[in-house]
């Protein structure tokens, strides 16, 4: 078997071949064969690292280190007393003893590119958080920790629960079955993805990926079973193979966070003096933005002015609205080809000096405590936080507005470019914002979400904090004429289904009834449906479907007194026209991306 690693094909070691060569007794052989699937899965993941990488296996069986040696890794073992190693593997055992003693020792200078923990975290007397915190010190910055653990959602535990048996392990009652493969360690706890993720974050690690795996064969071929038991074992195994969520084992890949991600935490005892990190406020520009107004608001921040700086993109030496010396904080103008969008945001982030970056734009009106609350937000486990976005009184509030152009009153899984805080090092490590798809001054819909999405996928925690509130002026259409806003809105509507397709979580938070771009588009769609059905069936009562929409627009379309009728008709025409542009864009986008949004 071969697997693709960084575009290169690498031959995987055959555990079957290994088993023919390893000098073990038949009992050991059969146990190793029985647990072969997990060993293969771990080897496959280890192969992401180049030969020669340093690998530490804690509580190993025989096949895993033997396979890693075949692949020319530099293998070190921490061997537990309950385990079995072949004589050729024993010299690799750097530590031998009880599991608790092995993981309790302090870190030395040596570092590992990969640490593998097969069924270890559920067996240690120390809390997994303590163990992971110690192990993090042993991993190189680009390294990984592979944790294989027994899932509470696996079919074995579910069947125990169904049978009325306890699903909480008891080290005295639940003596583990003898095994000559993975060492027989007492299972002290059951945990799932959420717990592991939480422990990892607190330990300065991030849960990058997790996959469920079939960790063993259906039945140990040398253990006598009656027909009923054997059929039961085969059926259960078949279910495990067919339905990944019911598998008993998962392999989680943990990566160390950059130092900044945990250095800033309020519970970091090593950094007690760091109560006021440097913040860089990154200001992206808009055509109708008011930079001077924003800088004036920032000057009133309660956060000490010597602890933050403001970075502004600048093109072709354009005039600077406020003289640098007049502001209590440092303002840095960063030359940039684009004044807004992902290109400017990335350029500013790279030029920033702060541990934390606060992303906003020149249409924002940050309240006095905005930076304080934002800094507090990223002082926990989260590397990115966003908050509420309310409309300033001078905003244009059209009858309908698409995502990205409207206020955010609650968590919608949308991280607006005008009100989000990031830990800079983490954001840069993740690659910053996605710059693809930018054409001229137009940016793809939802570009500001690309970075938080990537961070979340990489195992970091990002969240919505309602206290981080900011007012923003949503401007009227630019004076470029009708065509510019029409094309802008059409393309936004066109891109929305594609965005939902790429990020299904938005469907629940952003869409009305998980299908419509807004409640009003649903009402308009009903009107269109009523008109169509009335025309097809020649039954005017279908027009009643449009009553909802008419009721919704009553404020914008005055019917009385008659002197207002002309204004009402003009408004009605504008609303219908906007709706039609949207509907056309949404339908075209739905067809294009094969995801229905109306």
């Amino acid at each position, binding site marked *: 078997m071969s697997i693709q690693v960084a575009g290169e094909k690498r031959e995987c070691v055959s555990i*079957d071949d290994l*088993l*023919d060569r390893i*000098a*073990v*007794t*038949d*009992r*050991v*052989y*059969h146990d190793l*064969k029985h647990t072969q699937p997990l060993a293969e899965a771990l080897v496959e993941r280890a192969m992401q690292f180049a030969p020669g990488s340093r690998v530490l296996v804690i509580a190993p069986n025989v096949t895993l280190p033997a396979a890693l040696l075949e692949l020319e890794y530099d293998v070190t073992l921490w061997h537990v*007393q309950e385990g*079995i190693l072949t*004589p050729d593997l024993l010299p690799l055992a750097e530590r031998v003893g009880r599991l608790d003693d092995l993981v309790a020792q302090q870190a030395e200078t040596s570092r590992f590119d990969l640490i593998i923990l097969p069924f270890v975290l559920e067996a240690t007397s120390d809390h997994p958080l303590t163990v992971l915190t110690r192990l993090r010190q042993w991993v190189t910055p680009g390294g990984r920790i592979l944790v294989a653990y027994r899932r509470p959602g696996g079919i074995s535990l579910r069947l125990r629960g169904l049978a009325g048996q306890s699903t909480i392990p008891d080290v005295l009652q639940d003596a583990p079955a*003898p095994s*000559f493969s993975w060492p027989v360690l007492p299972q002290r706890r059951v945990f799932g993805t959420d717990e592991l993720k939480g422990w990892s974050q607190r330990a300065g690690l991030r849960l990058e990926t997790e996959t469920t795996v079939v960790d063993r064969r259906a*039945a*140990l*071929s*040398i*253990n*006598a*079973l*009656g*027909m009923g*038991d*054997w059929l039961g*074992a085969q059926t259960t195994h078949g279910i495990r193979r067919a339905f990944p969520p019911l598998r008993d084992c998962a392999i989680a890949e943990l990566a160390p966070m950059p130092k900044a991600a945990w250095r800033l935490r309020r519970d970091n005892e090593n950094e007690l003096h760091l109560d006021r990190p440097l913040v860089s406020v990154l200001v992206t520009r808009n055509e109708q933005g008011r930079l001077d107004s924003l800088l004036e608001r920032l000057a009133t921040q309660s956060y000490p002015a010597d602890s933050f700086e403001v970075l502004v993109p600048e093109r072709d030496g354009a005039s600077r609205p406020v003289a640098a010396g007049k502001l209590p904080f440092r303002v840095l103008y960063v030359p940039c080809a684009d004044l807004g969008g992902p290109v400017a945001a990335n350029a500013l982030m790279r030029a920033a000096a702060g541990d934390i970056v606060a992303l906003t734009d020149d249409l924002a009106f940050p309240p006095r405590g905005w930076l304080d609350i934002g800094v507090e937000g990223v002082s926990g486990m989260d590397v990115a936080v966003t908050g509420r976005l309310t409309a300033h009184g001078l905003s244009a509030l059209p009858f309908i507005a698409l995502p990205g152009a409207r206020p955010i009153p609650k968590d919608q899984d949308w991280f607006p470019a005008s009100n989000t805080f990031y830990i800079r090092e983490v954001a840069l490590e993740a690659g910053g914002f996605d710059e693809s798809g930018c054409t001229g001054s137009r940016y793809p819909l939802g570009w500001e979400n690309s970075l938080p999405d990537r961070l979340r996928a990489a195992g970091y925690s990002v969240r919505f904090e309602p206290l981080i509130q900011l007012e923003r002026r949503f401007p009227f259409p630019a004076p470029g004429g009708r065509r510019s806003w029409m094309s802008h809105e059409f393309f936004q509507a066109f891109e929305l289904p594609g965005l939902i397709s790429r990020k299904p979580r938005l469907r629940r938070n952003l869409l009305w009834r998980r299908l419509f771009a807004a409640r009003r588009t649903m009402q308009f769609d009903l009107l269109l449906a009523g008109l169509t059905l009335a025309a097809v069936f020649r039954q005017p009562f279908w027009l009643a479907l449009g009553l909802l929409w008419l009721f919704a627009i009553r404020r914008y379309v005055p019917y009385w007194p008659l002197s207002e009728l002309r204004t009402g008709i003009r408004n009605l025409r504008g609303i219908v026209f906007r709706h039609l542009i949207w509907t056309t864009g949404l339908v075209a986008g739905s067809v294009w991306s094969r995801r229905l949004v109306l």
Partner: protein
Amino acid sequence: MKVAFPYTGYWPYVRRGVERCTHDLATYLASRGHQVHVITSTPGRPRVAWDGDVKVTYVSQLNHPLMYRYTPMLRVDAFSLKATRIILREKPDVAHLWAYSGIRWASLLRRYAHFRYLFHVSVYWQMSLGRWWFPELKGANRVMALNSDAAEKVTAEFKVPCGVLPPPVDLRVFRPTVPRDPSHPKVFFPVDLADRRKGGSLLLRAWNRVHRECPTATLVLGGSLGVAGWLQDQRGSSALSHLGLVKDPAARAAIDLRGPGTLDSLPDWYSQASVTVLPSIDEAFGMVLTESLACGTPVVASEHCGPGEIIGDPSIGTTVDLRDDSDLVSSKRADELATAILRTIDLARAPGSRERCRDWASAWSLDKVGLRYERLLEEIVSESRPEPAPMRVAEPKELEVQVASEAPR
């Protein structure tokens, strides 16, 4: 001479007495210029390998949970068919069959395919069931047992003459290799931990007292871990699951579970030990005792069966009255075993103990036993030729005397 050793288990998969004896005898014959072929089975893929000059053919093994539940001996029969095919193809001059080699139709092969074989009884069986278990015994060219008691039983049940051929011990491999630390005596249990009859549980019971009276002692469990499918700890009946019998945590901490180790490591383990313990019942011989003695370490074992014949002198070990299953759970016997172990630890400290033990073990040296074995095979081969020589097998009593006279007193 082309010699075949068909047997279901062999190294590295099984390393109990029969397999080790096969290895020693096969290696000896190969060193004498004979073509030796061990036909055995593997849980993995079939293959041919070489163990020194000995050719080893591994045929695939039949393993299935249902088979072990309903027809456990099917595995032996399946092996037997494959081994027979190889035997018929290669036509060895003589074959060495052990009690569970499984070639049940060997006597038919002798009659119709000129198959000559020595049958070596390596186990005790329930009297009157022997004919059912070992139908090939009666048709063998020679029948040998590992001790005189078993030989008498064979003669009584099968009405055939049965000689005694004990397993050899290679004195070049098993010799005192490292010094022993008398202040921290090691009690070595080098046999299968999953085999209830080996008395591991009785030893764990005895260990409570041994450790109490000799707190610096360590119990080294260095045996294999059972035989797949047949002798394993599926229902928690072996010593592996009975570590709880050692009640004192300090005594439990003084147990070193090493597993079977390697052949290279065994002489060191024996040499380091102050006493090797084999508190088994129905033991056909007890190779570990002669190996231990060859390494200069005194032994403790049952006074019956094979071990009783080995430990003929109180200056090289101590015996305990262990006869049947009830003795393995008896607290009285556990106490006696503890006394014997403590006595033998003292014995190991006595000057000249090492030399005495090694001298005693020389009675079973590979050079002596191997030569007898080679002659025996040559007799079988020569008597089957057109002018057969009269069969000449030593009677049990005669052989017993022979072995005893070779042992130093």
